[in-house]
């Protein structure tokens, strides 16, 4: 897996596409990619665990707008959206889920452990809260070596209850580290609703107690997410210390493919679907005349084709030779 | 402290089983000759006496050996000596 891959490997946006239209394209890409994953999982082509973020696309796309090549990302096992929004090529993500050697983790990580060091995407983490210490470490290294990077750490309301969250936010605040704690609060930690896990459910309010800037954000409005993310990242870059964003969002599907979703009532899901992030933006673009006639259909078709190509290349790609089983357990000579 | 007859018999059974692990002690008649039944040679018998002494705390000399041929005999001696 060579290092220093060029960042933008997605096909370039068509000339003249407005910024907001590109946000729509980004969210649509994630939505269609994950819906395809659900199909492929059900067909047995993708195995193990699969956690999709359908409904939370605004968070991934919105936050990524504020980041540059120098910034780092640490994610969770619900990471496809973050990876794709960061520019990890769809075919290498799909190949990874097929367990192929051309996958972004050589088929060894699977859906929960996507890595692309060239794009400073430091992987998903399957231990809830497990990524927080990594993010703090990355930010510490950036700060000590005078690099301008900001590290974004995605985690959920579940991780908020982990001891590691407390330890890491406190540490970042204490050492004024350039970390954006992006809490994707989708109201459920697997089967446990927020109010059954947290005595005080206003997560942004409690995060402020660590002496860091902390705002709640409408996680279904990509523009609001982008605005808040830019404001937070700029503050961090100018030495304002770590920030906490409580991105209030919702996942339309179950925790994972295994989850019978008995713990949520349907009415609540329906209510949140009325604020589907893609529909919200489409409606706004139509009102402002930035999205005409069948522009949306054209965009959808282009994205679908990109996904078809990714699936085809994943199916055709080779497996890793079994003799390589023990490689990379220790770093090999040529890796500088 | 004095030893009851049952305790004494249990001690004898335990001692025999320690010397001859597969000995059928439960079904043994209380007047059967221990040495002949379990083929105890002089060393085995000495270990048997040693186990009884350690378990019961009672003093047993070579002159007592004639009383120790059967389970009943052993038990009586232990009970008598510990009273």
């Amino acid at each position: 897996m060579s290092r220093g891959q060029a960042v933008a490997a997605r096909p370039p946006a068509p000339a003249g596409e407005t910024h907001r239209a590109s946000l729509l394209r980004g969210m649509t890409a994630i939505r269609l990619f994950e819906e395809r994953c659900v199909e492929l999982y059900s067909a047995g082509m993708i195995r193990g665990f699969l956690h999709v973020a359908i409904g939370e696309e605004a968070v991934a796309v919105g936050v990524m707008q504020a980041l540059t090549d120098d910034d780092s990302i640490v994610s969770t096992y619900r990471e496809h959206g973050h990876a794709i929004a960061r520019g990890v090529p769809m075919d290498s993500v799909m190949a990874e889920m097929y367990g192929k050697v051309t996958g972004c983790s050589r088929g060894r990580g699977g859906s929960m452990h996507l890595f692309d060091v060239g794009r400073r995407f430091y992987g998903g983490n399957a231990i809830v809260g497990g990524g927080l210490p990594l993010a703090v470490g990355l930010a510490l290294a950036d700060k000590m070596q005078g690099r301008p990077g900001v590290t974004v750490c995605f985690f959920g309301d579940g991780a908020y209850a982990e001891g590691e969250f407390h330890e890491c936010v406190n540490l970042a605040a204490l050492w004024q580290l350039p970390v954006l704690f992006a809490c994707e609060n989708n109201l459920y930690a697997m089967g446990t609703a927020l109010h059954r896990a947290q005595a005080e459910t206003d997560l942004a309010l409690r995060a402020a107690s660590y002496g860091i800037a902390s705002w709640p954000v409408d996680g279904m409005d990509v523009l609001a997410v982008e605005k808040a993310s830019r404001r937070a990242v700029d503050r961090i870059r100018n030495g304002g210390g770590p920030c906490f964003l409580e991105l209030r969002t919702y996942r339309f599907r179950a925790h994972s493919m295994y989850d019978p979703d008995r713990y949520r009532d349907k009415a609540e899901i329906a209510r949140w679907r009325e604020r589907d992030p893609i529909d919200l933006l489409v409606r706004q673009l139509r009102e402002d005349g930035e999205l005409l006639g069948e522009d949306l259909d054209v965009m959808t078709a282009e994205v679908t084709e990109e996904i078809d190509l990714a699936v085809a290349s994943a199916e055709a790609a080779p497996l890793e030779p079994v003799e390589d089983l023990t490689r990379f357990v220790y770093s090999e000579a040529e890796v500088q | 402290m004095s030893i009851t007859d049952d305790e004494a018999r249990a001690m004898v059974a335990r001692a025999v089983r320690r010397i001859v692990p597969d000995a059928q002690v439960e079904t043994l008649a209380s007047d059967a000759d221990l040495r002949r039944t379990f083929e105890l040679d002089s060393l085995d018998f000495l270990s048997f006496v040693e186990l009884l002494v350690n378990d019961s705390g009672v003093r047993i000399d070579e002159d007592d050996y004639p009383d120790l041929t059967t389970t009943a005999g052993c038990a009586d001696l232990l009970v008598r000596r510990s009273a």
Partner: protein
Amino acid sequence: MPSLGADMDSGTLVEWLVHEGDTVHRGDPMAVVDTDKSAIEVESFDEGVVESFLVEPGTRVAVGTPLAALAPLTGATAEAAERQLPAPARRPPARKHAATRPPAEPGPSTAARPRVPKPRVPVPVGAPPLRHHAAELGVDLTRVAGTGPHGEVTRADVDRAAAEARAGARPERAPVRPETAPVRPVARGTQVSPYARRLAEELGVDLARVSSTGRDGAVRAEDVRRAAEASARPPSAPVEAREEAPAPGAGEVPGSWERSARATIAALMSRSKREIPHYYVATTVDLSAATEWLRRTNRERPVSERLVPAALLLKTTALAARQHPELNGFWADGRFVPGEDVHLGVAVSVRGGALVAPAIHHTADLDLGEVMAALRDLVKRARAGRLRRAEMADPTLTVTDLGDQGVEEVIGVIYPPQVALLGVGRIVERPWAVDGMIGVRPTVRLTLSGDHRATDGATGARFLNTIERLLLHPEEL
């Protein structure tokens, strides 16, 4: 000098916080001490006036060394001290582990700047072009299968292709494989498994003559059994003479171990009868002195050290063997080889019929208590199958005591390559004439089997007489 840490045995006085003549109270800090971990203020545990400093700043002293001399408070200074003393200042309890206070920095304090590591220049994006690397190794890039993202050829692929091209020339040393492949012990020469080695002892098989059929070249139990059976059959004997193992189900089939042990003894005894011209001499010995002595001795000994007659017989036999060395050794290559000391073999019947004769080493040098302990230990281990190699290998003369089994006389077969065997019967009350008078005495019948190639009956007879004489004075053993 107080101890300020579990692992502290000495300390260095850094500075005094008081002056000679000052009045100090309990708990007042008097000096600063360095404990290798940190500098700590030391307090006074007494009241008094500082009379003199016994240790100069900068010197290291052992814990417990007095640092200063305090004069007791005199009348005047005592009241003065009393008055200014606030309510009795309770000395803060000594913290279990020394309170590490920030060191009193003598000079202008330069807060130690966290050492900023030399910034590591990130590797320039785009290592040396792959083409150049491939050219160096003489690898044609077009024919290399890429394993990088979307099929891209990586440096590792080039290296692998180059390695395959050089397939002919073996790399001098295989790269060290991390902890993955289990290292298989390769059998060099005739390696022998522990169980096979033990079986060889028991079956009297000479391992040097056993070839391995195991895949990894090691000699295993099966190989030893096959060798034992082969040597048990005298080469000339027709095949059918070899009796088959009893058909299973015919009564209690001895376990495989017993069957093999039986085969061992069969082999050994047949060889003994085939090769050794036995002669036998016997005598009956009066044991009254010995048994009387035993009874008196045992009364004073705890039960765990009580002696049995067999111990007495072993000791006397060992002493006799010392006096008649021609009976204590081996017959090898047509001549007698004397044993370097007396190691008496004790024939032990193991439950289930097998018979082994392990040795008590240097029997003649042991006192009766030691012989007794050795005997008990040996029998216990023999029956548990835990005999050591040496014990099995080299008894110099064997004693078979079947008294417990109730027989009066034992005429035994010698264990090759030994040259003698003493058979001991049961202790029996017999009518006995002493000075013309008839009495009843405890007696035992001793029978010596001798190898006529090594000794004659006369030697055997002298050996038995020596044993008899020794038994008349047990107290001297």
